[in-house]
């Protein structure tokens, strides 16, 4: 039952894609690709819900041998636990809604069928990633979603910015993926398998075999696998691709770059949870925390509505990472779910706004004569230019024009800002904060409190910039009257998904997460007792307890997770009541502050954003330039390029013209040019040199043949004498 349901879930979108692909090869089009894809997703959605009942406490993976070698077998299979099911539902649900939304949003695009085909392929890949029981399968899905992301970001590939962005996305994430692959190699070398679950799986073996001596390499392996997540979930320092990825159509941004694919990194990290060591957890927590804060600060000063959301996404993903790094497995995944819904909603809402503006923009903007009707104008890679229909400075007062969009987006904003009790975002975020604080309290050194402070500040800033977005877009007076007049509410195909997502932003529908038996964190057998004694029930009494049994740890951890929440009757919970209470109170306060300041700045206008910006110019610049990440990558590049162009003067300027940003370019220009020249000059040159010398010697030998017979005779005589002399000596 499980296998067939999962198979249906996977095959539906795959079939939708395959039909398109086959027809495409024959240069024909399937007339109703949009319906086909959407129905396929809806079927998958239904099946996902059906799977809810199939979850059992200790599931076994369902596998087949994928590659069997003499000694080793790589299997492919499904693993269905509560997390899988929830992820399946999230993916299929958001995907279905995005499909429906796109039927309105993408209407009229010449590559309309292809768009849906890509969406289908993406859905398949994402679902495959989610259900895989082994690292190889996850990696396969991982790369495939990367491909779809590439294809969809570059969907309007006539735009150079889109073409650049899609390449950047693929390459940047691939850097992370390589790290992940190396991590996989390390695990494989140790365990001879890449399966995670079941007997002989990595987790079982790790629990049974690993000792303290293995912690070093296991930490390295963990961090390396996390590298994959850094790339895919746009964590620092590989986050720069995600804002650029907003070149893709907005539904894509909602589905891939907000709700699902970028969350895959979090999902992966959560999946690897049982083998995360103390060190790797810390690395994850800090990377996540710093990303959360940095991205949030950048978001404050953006004017492009999609980029604000993009940085918000990065920030929230950092949050999730922080949660998992801090050991709050459930909180991280909970936030992943809630975030998927409200962030998808925000993106779709912004899409609705853009769509509203777009028709006008297109009608009036004659200077952009491009091959494609969806040309959004030239935006520079660094984002200095913003397409007018995405620029919040052109918006304002839209709440009357687009009431549904406004209300749904407001709900999402309240949710993300952590407005207490009635919005899902509050609960998940609160749970993270509680987890981080709890962890910080138990960590031996004080400085890990910094994680909590980071998390808290990020929460406040999030509330601030999200309300800034709402105020600038929907409140106040229209700043661009002409555009405002043209704006209109979106069609039903677009508003219905908004409404559905808005409903999903309330905690009622996320009840699964409040059932502590439904989602349990897996055990982390090799997190050594001394550091984690706080997890054990005894630890509250201050005991740095003895080593725990596997079972004990898991029980205790589960208790801590749920207990930390404190809103449910929980008999196992005595834990960090104080931590939780503090966290909740503080989170409400910072959210309130954030909203309040936002209101002051952008609605009441008692405070001027401009004057603050002027006062804190350096900081403002730092935010505005996105901490100079792109500039750093570019700057290093340019400096080296100048050096290179002097060194390899003849290597033409076309390479320089083709400069995109990113470290990839540095290597491309410098190393590749050098290697290319090396190949031509040195290796080939050496060979040619040998040939030349041979030839030259041939010429010399030839010159002895003077044509004068007496010379020849002299050679004979000399030859005889020489031979005699040589052999006389021997």
């Amino acid at each position, binding site marked *: 039952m499980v296998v067939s349901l999962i198979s249906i879930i996977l095959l539906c979108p795959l079939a939708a894609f395959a039909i398109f692909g086959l027809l495409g090869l024959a240069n024909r089009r399937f007339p109703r690709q949009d319906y086909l894809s959407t129905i396929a997703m809806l079927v998958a959605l239904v099946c996902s819900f059906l799977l809810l009942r199939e979850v059992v406490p200790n599931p076994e993976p369902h596998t087949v041998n994928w590659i069997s070698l003499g000694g080793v077998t790589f299997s492919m299979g499904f693993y269905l636990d509560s997390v899988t099911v929830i992820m399946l539902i999230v993916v299929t649900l958001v995907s279905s809604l995005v499909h429906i939304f796109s039927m309105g949003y993408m209407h009229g695009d010449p590559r309309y069928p292809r768009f849906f085909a890509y969406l289908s392929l993406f859905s398949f890949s994402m679902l495959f990633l989610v259900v895989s029981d082994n690292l190889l399968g996850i990696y396969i899905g991982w790369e495939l979603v990367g491909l779809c992301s590439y294809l969809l970001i570059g969907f309007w590939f006539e735009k150079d910015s889109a073409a650049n962005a899609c390449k950047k996305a693929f390459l940047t994430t691939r850097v992370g993926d390589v790290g992940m692959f190396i991590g996989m190699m390390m695990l494989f070398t140790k365990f001879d398998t890449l399966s995670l679950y079941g007997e002989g799986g990595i987790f079982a073996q790790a629990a049974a075999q690993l000792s303290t001596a293995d912690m070093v390499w296991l930490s390295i392996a963990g961090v390396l696998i996390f590298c994959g997540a850094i790339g895919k979930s746009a964590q620092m320092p590989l986050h720069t691709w995600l804002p650029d990825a907003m070149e893709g159509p907005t539904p894509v941004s909602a589905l891939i770059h907000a709700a699902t694919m970028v969350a895959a990194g979090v999902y992966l990290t959560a999946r690897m949870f049982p083998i995360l060591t103390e060190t790797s957890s810390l690395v994850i927590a800090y990377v996540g925390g710093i990303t959360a804060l940095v991205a949030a600060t950048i978001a404050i000063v953006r004017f492009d509505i999609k980029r604000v959301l993009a940085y918000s996404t990065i920030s929230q993903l950092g949050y999730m990472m922080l949660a998992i790094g801090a050991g709050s497995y459930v909180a991280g995944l909970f936030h992943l779910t809630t975030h998927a819904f409200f962030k998808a909603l925000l993106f779709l809402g912004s899409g609705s706004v853009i769509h509203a503006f777009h028709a006008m923009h297109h009608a009036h903007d004659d200077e952009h004569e491009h091959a494609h009707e969806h040309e959004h104008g030239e935006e520079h890679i660094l984002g200095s230019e913003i397409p007018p229909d995405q620029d919040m400075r052109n918006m304002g007062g839209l709440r009357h024009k687009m009431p549904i969009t406004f209300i749904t987006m407001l709900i999402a904003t309240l949710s993300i800002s952590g407005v207490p009790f009635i919005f899902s975002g509050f609960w998940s975020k609160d749970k993270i904060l509680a987890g981080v604080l709890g962890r910080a309290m138990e960590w031996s050194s004080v400085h890990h409190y910094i994680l909590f402070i980071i998390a808290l500040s990020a929460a406040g800033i999030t509330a601030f910039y999200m309300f800034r977005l709402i105020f600038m877009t929907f409140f106040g007076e229209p700043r661009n009257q002409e555009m405002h007049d043209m704006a209109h509410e979106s069609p039903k195909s677009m508003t219905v998904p908004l409404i559905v997502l808005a409903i999903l932003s309330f905690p009622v529908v996320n009840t699964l997460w409040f059932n502590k038996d439904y989602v349990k964190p897996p055990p982390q057998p090799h997190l050594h007792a001394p550091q984690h004694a706080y997890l054990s029930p005894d630890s509250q009494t201050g005991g740095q307890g003895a080593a725990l049994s596997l079972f004990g740890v898991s029980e205790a951890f589960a208790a801590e997770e749920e207990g930390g929440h404190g809103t449910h009757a929980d008999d196992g919970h005595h834990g960090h009541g104080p931590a939780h209470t503090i966290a909740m109170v503080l989170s409400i306060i910072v959210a309130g502050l954030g909203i309040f300041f936002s209101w002051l700045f952008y609605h009441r206008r008692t405070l001027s954003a401009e004057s603050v910006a002027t006062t804190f110019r350096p900081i403002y610049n730092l935010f505005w330039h996105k901490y100079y990440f792109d500039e750093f990558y570019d700057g290093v590049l340019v400096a080296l390029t100048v050096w290179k162009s002097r060194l390899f003067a003849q290597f033409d300027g076309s390479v320089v013209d083709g400069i995109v940003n990113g470290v990839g370019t540095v290597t491309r220009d410098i190393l590749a040019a050098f290697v290319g020249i090396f190949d031509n000059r040195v290796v080939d040159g050496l060979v040619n040199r040998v040939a030349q010398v041979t030839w030259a010697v*041939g010429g010399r030998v030839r010159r002895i043949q003077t044509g004068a*017979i007496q010379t020849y005779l002299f*050679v*004979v005589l000399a*030859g005889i004498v020489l031979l005699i002399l040589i*052999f006389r000596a021997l």
Partner: protein
Amino acid sequence: MESLKNIESLLYFSPEILLVIFAVAVVLLDLVVKDRESVAVAYLSLVGCFCTFAAVLFTHFSFGDEGPVSLFLGMIQLDAFSSFFKVLLLLATAATILFSLRSEELDARLKGEYYALLLAITLGMFLMASSTNLLMIFISLETVSLTSYILAGFLTHSPRSSEAAFKYITYGAVASGTMLFGLSLLFGMAGTGDLAQISGRLTELLAAGEIAPLAVLIAITFVLAGVGYKIASVPFHMWSPDVYEGAPIPITAFLSVASKSAGFALFIRFFYAGFGSTELMQAVDWPFMLAIVSALTMTVGNLAALPQQNVKRLLAYSSIAHGGYLLMGGVLLTSQGIGAILFYLVVYLFMNLGAFYVVVLIANEVGSEMVEGYRGLSSRAPLVAWAMVIFLVSLAGIPPFAGFFGKWLLFTAVLEQGYYWLALVGLLNSVVSLYYYARIVKAMFLEDAGEETDSVSFSTGTFALLSVFVIPTIFIGFLNIFYTFSNISVSVMPMQ
């Protein structure tokens, strides 16, 4: 081994006698035939070749098969080895006669003497292959030399041909004079002209300390000058490019194949029968000397061939290089080495004569011996071009052609004796050689003919003759019989 007396020997000598008879007959026929365009003399000499061939087979299977027979009081010897060379030489002679028939370069009026001389030179080579006495060696060598001087200068109004003859005779006279001096020293030291006895005597005398090793070294080196000149090995090779370039093409072909084969026959017999004893080799390490000469020969030949523009000259250098490869086999003092030389000579006969035949054809039709003249031949005369490719590739030693198998045998023999350096030199040389062979191929296939694009047609006879060379070049390597044949021929050689 008891030597036969003069009269008894005559029956065993029938191939040579037949050659003489036909040479005279050709001259006589030439006097009778009035028609200057007649090909009768050529065909008569071909018949002569055929009869001689039959006689060679006859003598071999009637007498020589059972073991060596010494003739004319030990002057020459009839054995499998000499029969092998006789067959080989007859093939070359017959081919040369056919080439000459088709060569427009040769002057028709002088054909009688020409064919008579060819038969005479063959006679000389027969003797070279079978002589076992210093006197006979010298006489046969001079017979071959004198006739080949004349043949090289046969084009009366060509300065190149005269120059070739002049250089050839000057060089040849000095080289054979030097050799004769060496022979006289040998004779003086050993007190006998019989090769088999020389070996024994010299060994005894060396052991007794009656003669200085230096004297033997000088004698051997002087002899080497004469033999080296015949097989065109460095540093006695310098006549050959000039002579090959100046001589009529059929003669060049003949010299490069037959003269070289006969030279090797003489070389093998001389060194193995005369200097083959261990003591002698301790006194004078001639195998090592030959190894050096061999390495030098192939290297110089190949390197000098690289920049050549004249195909004949290029093939001349290539044939020098092949002399070097062949010499490798002589270094080894093993029957495999000699067998490899013999096999390679067979292969070399076909591929080299084939290549020269193409040169004849192209010279006739295109009027050029230069590499540029071969441009676009693939479209103008595709069959001839492909045949040339097969010959050249085989010369370069690339499978599956016979040249590869020949080299294979040589290198196997060399490696078996542990001469790794020599084998490596040889193999690297064969890589170099590919380069200049490929230049001709390149001209034929990869370059356009320019304005001359008419296709060139050849007669059926031409193709038939061409296929006589092409087919063995392709298949010899795959046939067991040739390996067996060459191995049997060697079995008579005294090996240490």
